[in-house]
């Protein structure tokens, strides 16, 4: 059975993958459907969905097209989720690998450093970081990455600690492979499965974090994002439910899809559950 067949055995994962693909397509095709900037005011405010042709989700308090905002926002959400997760992996992976592989004092030092970040409430830290650096896509990505790398480091360290004494690693040491080669060629490939699963869930968390920041008005003022849309609509939630409902639904579906995919990856990558690899 190949990798995809194992993945597809989990129905939920398949559903998640379909939702995720749809959202990615939305993000890519947004400029085709709505070539105008999502910030432009096109109609009178508070149009309900389907009231006027071309505005399937109505307009917001300023007369902007909600459907356009939703599709352009998908791009921002996915971008921030992916980039910040990549940055977090770039910090957490090497730290965890070095701590887990070498152990001893180095491990102690790196882990205390990690704990320093873990003791600060992550959302508060993210707010402070964005506020100091001025809200922009870059600062948001950095802030999210800085608060989300510690779990990566911990996971990678745990994997490395259990893998570093395997016989095949000892065999590699015996044939004279250096530490860097052993880390990259022998241990890392075997530690990838849980890291990939964690990464898919981190993308979901990052999207939520970005939305929360935008909701509080700390989003990039130049890009439309789902969090901003909900935040701007919260004062009128009783008059115009659709303004918060559609972006909220979009966040819910994206995060759910990512979680489902993560779970599917876990099943497909976990050698204990598959008979093929033992």
């Amino acid at each position, binding site marked *: *059975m190949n990798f995809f067949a194992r993945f597809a055995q989990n129905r939920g994962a398949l559903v998640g993958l379909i939702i995720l693909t749809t959202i990615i397509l939305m993000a890519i095709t947004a400029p085709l459907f709505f070539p105008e900037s999502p910030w432009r005011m096109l109609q009178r405010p508070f149009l309900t969905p389907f009231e006027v042709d071309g505005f399937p989700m109505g307009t917001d308090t300023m007369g902007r097209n909600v459907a356009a905002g939703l599709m352009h926002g998908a791009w921002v959400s996915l971008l921030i989720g992916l980039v910040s997760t990549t940055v977090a992996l770039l910090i957490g992976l090497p730290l965890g690998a070095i701590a887990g592989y070498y152990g001893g004092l180095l491990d102690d030092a790196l882990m205390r450093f990690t704990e320093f970040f873990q003791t600060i409430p992550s959302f508060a830290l993210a707010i402070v970081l964005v506020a100091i650096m001025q809200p922009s896509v870059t600062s948001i990505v950095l802030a999210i990455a800085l608060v989300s790398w510690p779990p990566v480091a911990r996971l990678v360290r745990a994997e490395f600690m259990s893998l570093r004494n*395997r*016989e*095949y*690693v*000892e*065999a*590699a*040491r*015996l*044939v*004279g*492979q*250096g530490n860097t*080669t052993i880390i990259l*060629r*022998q241990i890392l*490939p*075997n530690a990838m499965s849980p890291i990939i699963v964690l990464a898919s869930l981190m993308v979901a968390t990052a999207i939520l974090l970005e939305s929360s920041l935008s909701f509080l008005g700390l989003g990039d003022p130049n890009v439309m994002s789902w969090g901003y849309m909900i935040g701007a609509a919260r004062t009128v939630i009783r008059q115009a439910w659709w303004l918060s409902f559609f972006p909220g639904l979009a966040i819910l579906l994206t995060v759910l899809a990512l979680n489902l995919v993560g779970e599917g990856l876990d099943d497909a990558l976990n*050698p204990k559950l598959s*008979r*093929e*690899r*033992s």
Partner: protein
Amino acid sequence: MNKGNHVTSTTDTPLLSLQDLTIALPKGADRAYAVENLSYDVLRGEILCVVGESGSGKSMAANAIMGLLPEGVRPVGGKAMFAGQDLLSITEKQHRKLRGLRIGMIFQEPMTALNPLMRVGAQINEVFEAHSQLNRAERGAKALELLKEVGLPDPEKAIRAYPFQLSGGQRQRVMIAMALALEPELLIADEPTTALDVTTQAQILDLIIDLQKRHGMAVMFITHDFGVVAEIATRVCVMRHGQIIELGQAKEVLANPQHEYTRSLIEAIPSNIVPEARGAETDTLLLDVKGLNKVFRSNGGLFKPAREVRALDDVSFSLAKGETIGIVGESGSGKSTLGRCIVRLETPDSGTMSLSGTDFMQLNGESLRRQRKRVQMIFQDPYASLNPRTRVGMAIAQGPIANGVPKQKALVQADDLLELVGLANTANRFPHEFSGGQRQRIGIARALALEPELIVADEAVSALDVSIQAQILKLLEDLKQKLSLSLLFITHDLRVAAQICDHIIVMQHGCIVEQGPARDVFLAPQQAYTRQLLEAIPGRPEATEAASRQRGYK
């Protein structure tokens, strides 16, 4: 030792009767049925040995009887009649009443079969509780009595001990006590001695025979070792690929096996015949080990003192070029530590080890890394010693590449090495596509890739089935001739060591007890401990005689 069939005459109806039992494996397994049309009886008062190599389905029938089949595996045909009921069709609730009360079971791994957080006494009491028998005080008394019966030293203390405070053999005794608690009519023992040392194994086998006689119960004993069969079986059932190959009285099967496969299994038992001393070795000294010491220390906690285990105690020996030395001992004797010190996976506390003049113990860091290729190791577990994500050709080539050989050239070399160990054109496969024996061949090829001066084989054949074990030993023997290898062969099995080694070193508690030419140590041991090790080998002399006889027929 063999009881013959006089006990079986007490009754004609079998206690347990398997009729055409067929168990289906889930889709994607290597065959459709774990066992197919399996029929055998277990008679009252007999010991039936079910023998087969790994994957033969020998444990599946036992699991079906106990209702302990793994998920996805289910019986699809046949019956398992026990006391008038078909065990395959009764409900889980009815099954639970039988388990423990009328059918007891002992597992292979005494380390994992006991709950680590419960005292031994409480675990035995649970058996009575599960079947609501006896009151509290009676249970305690009965548990103590059971522990006495299975021969645990100091049962009053053992009853309050946690499993980790007992040795493997003692835990297996506790398991037996639990299985016997309610005096079952049938005891199923699934490889109960495989994880134990030879001397402990001999004691447990004696205990099972003794209890079987005293209680008159039937025992279904699952094993892969014909030596054990010779020791205890009344009747024997040989299985292969889920089918019965041969079924009959143990004596007859051992003396006169009808089937080719049975013959090959008996033949695979290393025999008593020790090859003549081979004069192949030269006088050039290759390895000289002097005064090696290694102590493992565990940090003590607040309430427990630090523990020290002396793994190596002033060990000295030397090995000439082209010579094979066997290091034999039970688990905990320090033999593996010695091997790991010599390849420098562990650093000894003191002592010297010179390899053709270089003092290996002085090397460190980068200089050690460059010298490592001179001593290589073959690991015990063929499943753990190959990186599951690396193609085997690459796994072999990695060594030469790390030592500066160009990648292309190293890969070509790897191909040649694979051919040498009998696995031509397999370089592009992943380890999971190979069987255990094949993986061990890959491990040997990897060790050879660097053309080392010395190879340390740490229990290299212990994890393999007997027939595969014989093949690997043959391969090592061939390679020794072809490449004039120097080998340090670490094993717990004196018979295996006697087959392949020129010299044998017997270790106990980190010290060398006896050393000498293999023939002398095996045929005329000087020390009591060596004699004890030899006597504990199951099936001596019956099985080994049978094995020698088989070879004679050829």
